[in-house]
């Protein structure tokens, strides 16, 4: 009974304890191995099995890669070289086909004298994208734009671009870099104009075409300000009607007339001459740029209180998601011809872009709807209580947060769509994976070459998709607001 009862003894701390470093664990590598690879019998067995599988794969394919030939003009020559170098019975990859058919894989049947045009369009695309993708980081923008400028100009020189266009490209590239250093938001004007410029560079024809397309929204804006004095709703309707009327009825005639007065034409390239990665990237970039806004609108419509708008969005989304992309592409290539007047020349690439856009917009809408649903109701209420109207609340409060939540899903949809561009092979377009490789094999010199083109095309697709994935992770990190 004489012991003190520890629980009941009063205690007052007179000095507070200073924080101390955690105990030093066993040294790094050994600890890591034990914890991650050999933590128990099952884990050890799995590790050994994994190592065995990797060994099996590498030992099987290693010699094929190691013996690869990069310089030859036909498959037979490749085989000859492999046998001469590595002896009878040796296997080896013949990547010479990529070296020899590089331009074909990149540009398809685009006129070779004009290869510089898509190259320039591709380079300038980064000037248009930089202020959008890297609006917050001057350092990244600078790196991207410097690399783009150097590579684009070098490639254009290699492809014998005319001097005047070299100067033009240099001005835009260097000018873009300079503007990005000081007033990055000014560069957004170029981002808005780029789609028209890009289309003009790719297909050629008269510059008056894109200019007259641009006139449409300007007229719409004029109508909006004029009618806006009377009624906000009427003004919106007037703007849309005026723009569409101009595009459908007057734009092409006005372009033709203007071209007659002052010719601004460069050689025209038909859509069936497009091919390879030029085609895949054209469809992919256009689809990505168009499907995000369309997806946002569909997602908002699906959550709308208005019954008609909501039902239309639901029907559209469910229909598009329920149909295979190939079916939509067939509709684009075959059925539309039955419905349109015989003389209309509705460009096949444009038709495919529309279908691909609608397809991925439906998926996009569901991804974004998930983000919208994840926002707490309090955010909507706070926006309401402050007096923000529906569109302002969506733009300033709801969408920035919902899109941030949806970034992984959005980028997954982009990646999926970009890979799906290879399906246009079924409507007779020369996408790189199948059509282009078939075209290459059609030549007697490369008959029988299968693995190498697939590996090459897959590798390029991987680089682009991996790039998108890394960008999405960068964006998520940048937008993280809770712990900084």
């Amino acid at each position, binding site marked *: 009974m004489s012991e003190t009862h520890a629980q009941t003894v009063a205690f007052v701390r007179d000095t507070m304890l200073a924080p101390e470093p955690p105990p030093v664990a066993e040294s790094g590598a050994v600890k890591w191995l034990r914890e991650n690879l050999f933590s128990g019998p099952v884990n050890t067995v799995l590790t050994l099995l994994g190592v065995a599988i990797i060994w099996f794969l590498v030992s099987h394919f290693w010699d094929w890669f190691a013996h690869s030939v990069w310089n030859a003009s036909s498959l037979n020559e490749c085989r000859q070289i492999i046998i001469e170098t590595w002896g009878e019975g040796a296997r080896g990859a013949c990547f010479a086909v990529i070296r020899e058919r590089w331009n074909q894989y990149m540009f398809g049947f685009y006129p070779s004298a004009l290869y510089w045009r898509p190259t320039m369009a591709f380079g300038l695309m980064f000037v248009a994208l930089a202020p959008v993708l890297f609006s917050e980081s001057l350092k990244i923008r600078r790196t991207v734009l410097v690399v783009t400028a150097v590579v684009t100009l070098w490639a254009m020189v290699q492809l014998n671009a005319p001097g005047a266009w070299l100067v033009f490209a240099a001005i835009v590239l260097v000018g873009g870099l300079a503007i990005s250093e000081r007033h990055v938001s000014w560069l957004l004007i170029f981002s808005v104009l780029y789609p028209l410029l890009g289309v003009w560079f790719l297909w050629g024809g008269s510059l008056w075409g894109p200019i007259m397309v641009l006139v449409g929204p300007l007229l719409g804006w004029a109508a909006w300000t004029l009618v806006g004095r009377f009624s906000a709703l009427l003004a919106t309707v007037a703007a849309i009607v005026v723009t569409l009327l101009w595009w459908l009825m007057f734009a092409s005639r006005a372009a033709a007339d203007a071209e007659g007065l002052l010719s601004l034409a460069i050689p025209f390239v038909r859509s069936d001459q497009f091919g390879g990665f030029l085609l895949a990237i054209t469809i992919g970039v256009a689809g990505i740029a168009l499907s995000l806004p369309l997806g946002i609108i569909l997602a908002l419509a699906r959550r709308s209180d208005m019954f008609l708008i909501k039902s239309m969005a639901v029907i559209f989304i469910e229909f598009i998601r329920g149909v295979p992309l190939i079916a939509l592409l067939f509709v684009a290539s075959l059925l539309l011809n039955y419905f349109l007047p015989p003389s209309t020349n509705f460009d096949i690439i444009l038709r495919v872009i529309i279908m691909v856009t609608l397809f991925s917009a439906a998926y996009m809408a569901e991804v974004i709807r998930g983000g919208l649903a994840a926002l707490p109701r309090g955010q909507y209420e706070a926006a309401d209580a*402050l007096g923000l109207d529906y569109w302002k609340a969506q733009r300033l409060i709801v969408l920035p947060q919902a899109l941030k939540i949806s970034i992984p899903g959005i980028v997954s949809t982009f990646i999926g769509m970009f890979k799906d561009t290879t399906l246009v092979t079924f409507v007779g377009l020369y996408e790189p994976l199948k059509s282009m490789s078939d075209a290459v094999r059609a030549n007697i010199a490369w008959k029988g070459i299968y693995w190498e083109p697939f590996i090459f095309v897959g590798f390029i697709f991987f680089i682009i998709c991996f790039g998108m994935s890394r960008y999405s992770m960068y964006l998520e990190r940048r937008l993280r607001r809770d712990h900084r």
Partner: protein
Amino acid sequence: MSEAITREIDRSQMRISDEVAIEIHKMNKWYGTFHVLRDIDLTVHRGERIVIAGPSGSGKSTLIRCINRLEEHQSGRIVVDGVELTSDIKNIDKVRSEVGMVFQHFNLFPHLTVLENCTLAPIWVRKVPRKQAEATAMKYLEKVKIPEQADKYPGQLSGGQQQRVAIARSLCMQPRIMLFDEPTSALDPEMIKEVLDTMIELAEEGMTMICVTHEMGFAQAVANRVIFMDQGQIVEQNSPREFFNNPKSERTKLFLSQILGH
């Protein structure tokens, strides 16, 4: 029971005028078939500080959410600052820009800095130039004593700080009426005081306030009228002194004995 209120209240600016700020007449609201608010009659004069108390589910929050139309009422009239709340969007927007609201869970915009939270509505709703909106925002952030946090994001602040930002955000719209929906219920005891202090300061400046709160110390010190609600009805309303010392209805007595009993 009023540990949170430690200082003397300066009543020199607290004046209740004859002007009517809010008038609610025979207002009813249903959630589906559930009758949440029943025949509510309430007149609030400019400068009044009203505390609404009552058990959970009694309709207190719903009542003040009806005043800026976060909830729609189905019958009766609500007139705020001379504007009747109907389904007319223009009236709703007019009322909302005059009535500030502070929520239980703050509802700050997590993707914007504290300063941006405060300037957003003035810039986009009131069309105040950015510079001026920022100056006003800093003034109110100083008032709630966190000007140094202006460039942080809400997620980096404590609950009490966030709630003070939420109050500053509402004040930036320079509202004539402030609604508080259980502003301290989600806070730790240590942080309740800082938020209540801010609210007391507002009351001292003569702001018209309606607070749904369980802080009876605040009610006694600041309110000029306490309203007790139960089952969607106003059961009793009186001056705080009468309300706490001499409750009339049995339901009020029971409620007071439960929250003040221990």
